[in-house]
């Protein structure tokens, strides 16, 4: 198949269609809306279900119902909308249903703005809703990767009966890039043995998230945790760039990872031995891959479009064995490769003090540069 120039939001929508999406439920919110708009025409054309819901609450609960039938379903939204969906996501997690959710993250908190951000990292990787559960989180850094991960998302959701979130950001959703779309998969006809589909001639099936008996809830939670351990063991994905002889390692995902890659390449041209590790799954987090880099690395630099949320995951792995620096932009601001290059150069020249939490130095620098706003 040929590559075509396609917008991130539309590419993910078409990739989902080709993965055998049976139903889509969503609500307009920038910078995700093209995904919904595209499917509003595409799904009916194929005789599949599309509903523009009354709210994100409505959308996620329609997805909840559709997922109970065992057929492929998804929704998409952006940060404030995904916050509204957290109620439904917690119920879906407890009911152990396969659901794909796309979050085209924008600047926040609050209404924030519609610019690209990674501010929802904690919400995405810590479950987000009430109670203890995990969701698989895939973080593409290009339109092509978003397409590929969309196909994967449906397979992983079904394999583990789990929520898979595709964590994008406003720039990935809005950007046009050449990408190759996958071939059409037929819509699955086999019905999972847990699906509530109103069939006769078998025991009735009930799907619920209520376990009024605490021991039963605890057993459910143990099952969820066991499945998460399986996911941690089998589904970690990341990309490494120039890591073989790297003395310094940059860690960044999604758009920040992509920007960091440009900076790493420039730094290499300047003779700095630096590499990049880009987590593709931010949950499960590539713990072993980072751990393996610790002995050969002089210092790490974490780059994010937030206030250092993944930074805490990196700190947990590195556990004080090596210094870590942080550079981030917040509120819908996107770092330039030159910003990251400057940080790499500072790191390599030993200018950065590692006595305090990496966020302290960064925040002091941000205040000096941009003021406190007070």
């Amino acid at each position: 198949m040929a590559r075509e120039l396609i917008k991130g939001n539309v590419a993910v929508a078409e990739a989902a269609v080709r993965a055998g999406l049976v139903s889509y439920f969503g609500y307009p919110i920038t910078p995700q809306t093209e995904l919904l708009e595209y499917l509003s025409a595409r799904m009916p054309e194929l005789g599949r279900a599309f509903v523009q819901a009354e709210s994100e609450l409505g959308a996620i609960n329609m997805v909840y119902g559709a997922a109970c039938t065992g057929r492929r379903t998804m929704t998409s939204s952006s940060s404030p909308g995904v916050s509204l969906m957290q109620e439904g996501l917690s119920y879906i997690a407890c009911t152990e249903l396969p659901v794909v959710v796309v979050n085209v993250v924008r600047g926040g908190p609050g209404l924030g703005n519609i610019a690209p951000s990674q501010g929802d990292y904690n919400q995405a990787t810590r479950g987000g809703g009430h109670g203890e559960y995990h969701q698989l989180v895939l973080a593409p850094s290009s339109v092509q990767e978003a397409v590929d991960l969309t196909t994967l998302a449906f397979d992983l959701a079904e394999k583990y009966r789990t929520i898979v979130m595709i964590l994008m950001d406003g720039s990935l959703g809005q950007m046009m890039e050449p990408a190759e779309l996958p071939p059409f998969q037929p819509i699955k006809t086999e019905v999972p043995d847990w699906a509530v589909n109103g069939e006769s001639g078998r025991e009735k099936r009930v799907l619920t998230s209520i376990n009024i008996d605490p021991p039963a809830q605890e057993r459910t939670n143990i099952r969820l945790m066991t499945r998460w351990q399986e996911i941690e063991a089998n589904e970690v994905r990341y990309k490494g760039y120039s890591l073989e002889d790297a003395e310094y390692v940059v860690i960044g995902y999604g758009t920040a990872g992509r920007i960091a890659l440009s900076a790493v390449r420039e730094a290499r041209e300047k003779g700095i031995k630096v590499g990049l590790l880009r987590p593709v799954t931010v949950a499960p987090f590539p713990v072993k891959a980072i751990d393996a880099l610790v002995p050969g690395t002089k210092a790490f630099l974490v780059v994010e479009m937030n206030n250092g949320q993944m930074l805490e995951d990196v700190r947990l792995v590195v556990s004080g064995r090596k210094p870590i620096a942080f550079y981030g932009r917040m509120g819908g601001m996107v770092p330039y490769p030159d910003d990251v290059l400057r940080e790499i150069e500072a790191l390599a020249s030993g200018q950065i003090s590692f006595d305090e939490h990496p966020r302290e130095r960064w925040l002091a620098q941000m205040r000096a540069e941009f003021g406190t706003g007070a």
Partner: protein
Amino acid sequence: MIASDVKLVYQRPLGFEERGTHYCPGCTHGVAHRLIAEVLEEMGELGHTIGVAPVGCAVFAYNYFAFDFVEAPHGRAPAMATGIKRSLPDRMVFTYQGDGDLASIGMGEIVAAAARGEQITTIFINNTNYGMTGGQMAPTTLPGQVTTSSPHGRDVERQGYPIRTAEMLATLEGAAYVVRRSLHDAKNIRLAKKALRTAFEVQKQGLGFSMVELLSTCPTNWGMTPADARVWLAEHMLPYYPVGDFKVSNAISFEKQGGN
């Protein structure tokens, strides 16, 4: 030994599980459940039906019905039912919701589902209070009615007036059949069953959204005997919530449904 001329006149509906009730004595949830099971059995739909349970006293409704069920977050049953119906359009899909669930936290979902003409049926239990949490004020609590969160009686100056949900939903084009019935005596229970039959037929024929509001008793939280609760319903609820047909689409050609 049963004599050969003995006729079976009453038995557990096929749509029911064999289990004891967890509902309070005198509560009309059991009556409503039974009517649904009877109607679906008579229509031959037991093998094609998916129910959506609410949050509230009926959260465990699926323990009583002998067919597939899901359990929705508070108020979201119409959205969940939409997802199911759009995925499996040939199935009979219904929600069973109380007044806190449907008319308070879930008002957005029910209005939107009715407006879309979603091909689902809703059974709406109105007993003027939040039963499961112990009898707090609901959107349906009558003016002056004492509840645990309106201890001096619902003060309409500060807490507003109760919502007539059926009348409100009847204004929506997508709603094909919206009626109110009551479960306080045998005659009204028979009329309620006829209305449920019509509501499910509306769904089967794809005519649009259908809802039957059922006036119900809550003797425990009302602090009355079951018998007194029935009298209280007739004397206090019926004047504010009259039984009747608020929307009957022209496409419905079934025999006339008696309301009053």
